[in-house]
């Protein structure tokens, strides 16, 4: 393997490690939220710095690769997409941390399980986790055939998000004392919806890297 290829491989390894960490942060955020596990939530918050460090390292390594090796074609697309993917992964991790902070603030007081069920929050979490892990597989295998399926899952997330307004309105009308936790739940659903958008952005970057196609905003006009 040429040294330039080794550098690229090392970049790929860094992105893989960051991806696994962010996936684990989101998985733990789900567990902490559903179980009200404050210790787990604190663990998520403390590991956020590791995600930030990955982002800085990847950013710096990508800059160095461009400066030193002047990549073109697939190598250039890889570096450009890795810069954006690492930023996006860091944002997803930020959302995981803010979900953890909601759990810490609630100090173990869980949201009404009936509301969680009606809002399909567990399903939202699981859909997002599968989007993130499937896109990881797409990148590792450099195969974008599942890109369409991953992006279709974001539509499911959007539908669940839109349905949440009516569900929450009905719930709060029946339980006016739960207004505070209702608002926090709305915040949570909004965060999950944004994570779905970020997963979509990651898939777009993978398609750009592998297939040299621009999907963003409906592609280049």
């Amino acid at each position, binding site marked *: 393997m*040429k040294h*330039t*290829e080794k550098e690229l491989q090392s970049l790929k390894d860094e992105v893989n490690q960051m991806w696994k960490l962010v996936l684990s942060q989101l998985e733990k955020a789900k567990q902490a939220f559903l179980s009200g596990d404050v210790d787990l939530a604190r663990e998520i918050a403390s590991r956020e710095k590791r995600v930030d460090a990955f982002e800085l390292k990847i950013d710096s390594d990508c800059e160095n690769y461009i400066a030193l090796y*002047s*990549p*073109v*074609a*697939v*190598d*250039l*697309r890889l570096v450009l997409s890795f810069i954006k993917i690492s930023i996006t992964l860091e944002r997803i991790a930020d959302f995981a941390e803010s979900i953890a902070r909601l759990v810490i603030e609630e100090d173990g007081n869980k949201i009404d399980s009936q509301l969680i069920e009606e809002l399909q929050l567990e399903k939202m979490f699981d859909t997002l986790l599968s989007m993130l892990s499937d896109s990881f597989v797409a990148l590792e295998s450099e195969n974008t055939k599942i890109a369409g399926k991953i992006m279709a899952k974001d539509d499911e997330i959007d539908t669940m998000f839109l349905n949440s307004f009516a569900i929450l309105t009905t719930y709060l009308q029946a339980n006016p004392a739960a207004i505070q936790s209702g608002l926090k739940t709305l915040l949570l659903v909004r965060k999950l919806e944004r994570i779905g958008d970020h997963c979509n952005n990651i898939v777009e970057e993978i398609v750009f890297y592998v297939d*040299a196609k621009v999907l963003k905003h409906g592609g280049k006009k």
Partner: protein
Amino acid sequence: MIETKNIDFYYGNFHALKNINMKIGKNTVTAFIGPSGCGKSTFLRLFNRMNDLIDGTRLTGECAIAGRDIYHKSFPVDELRKKVGMVFQKPNPFPKSIFENVAYGLRVNSMGDKSFIIAKVEESLKAAALWEEVKDKLKKSAFELSGGQQQRLCIARALAISPSILLMDEPASALDPISTSKIEELIYSLKENYTIIIVTHNMQQAARVSDKTGFFMLGELVEYNDTKKMFLSPEKEQTQNYITGRFG
């Protein structure tokens, strides 16, 4: 403006160019890239019939400039050489003064009187971005100039006879980064008035200066595309392997 159809070229039994078809637009910069021995310089030299000077070569196919086949018996080679200037890898000024280097082509072709030649030398040196550096020492030997200046002098010499096409065979490969940058800026500015074809081993140079790029390998034109497309998302795997350094 330039069009080749089914070009095959042989050095004796060696098949150096295989069925090359290409259209090059007026006032554009086209870069030819590819590994050594791929045929890119041979193809470049077709456009001013420099290959005719090599014994045992043979060409089939058509190479037309402005609609006229330059290899047709009736096409005057003298006229072609005035129309197509050439700059080589190593600066090759004549052992004459700076002024006489640029004036040389005009004199041997009897192009204009003394005042015309003086004006044309100044115009050519300005076009080659060298005038400001040499205007006070035009009678000095061309060999007193730096390598980068000598190369720009050679470009001025090529421009003096008012060609419409400029061929450049690795024009900056023997120059330092500052001189290279000046030559590249020059190429960029010259395309307003000239059609430029450049052979280069410097991938980034091709990316910086050209509108279109042709990638040659083993005598074949593997890919000919817009330079932006070529360096971001080439269509052929061979091109990608070459420009990313995975070739070979």
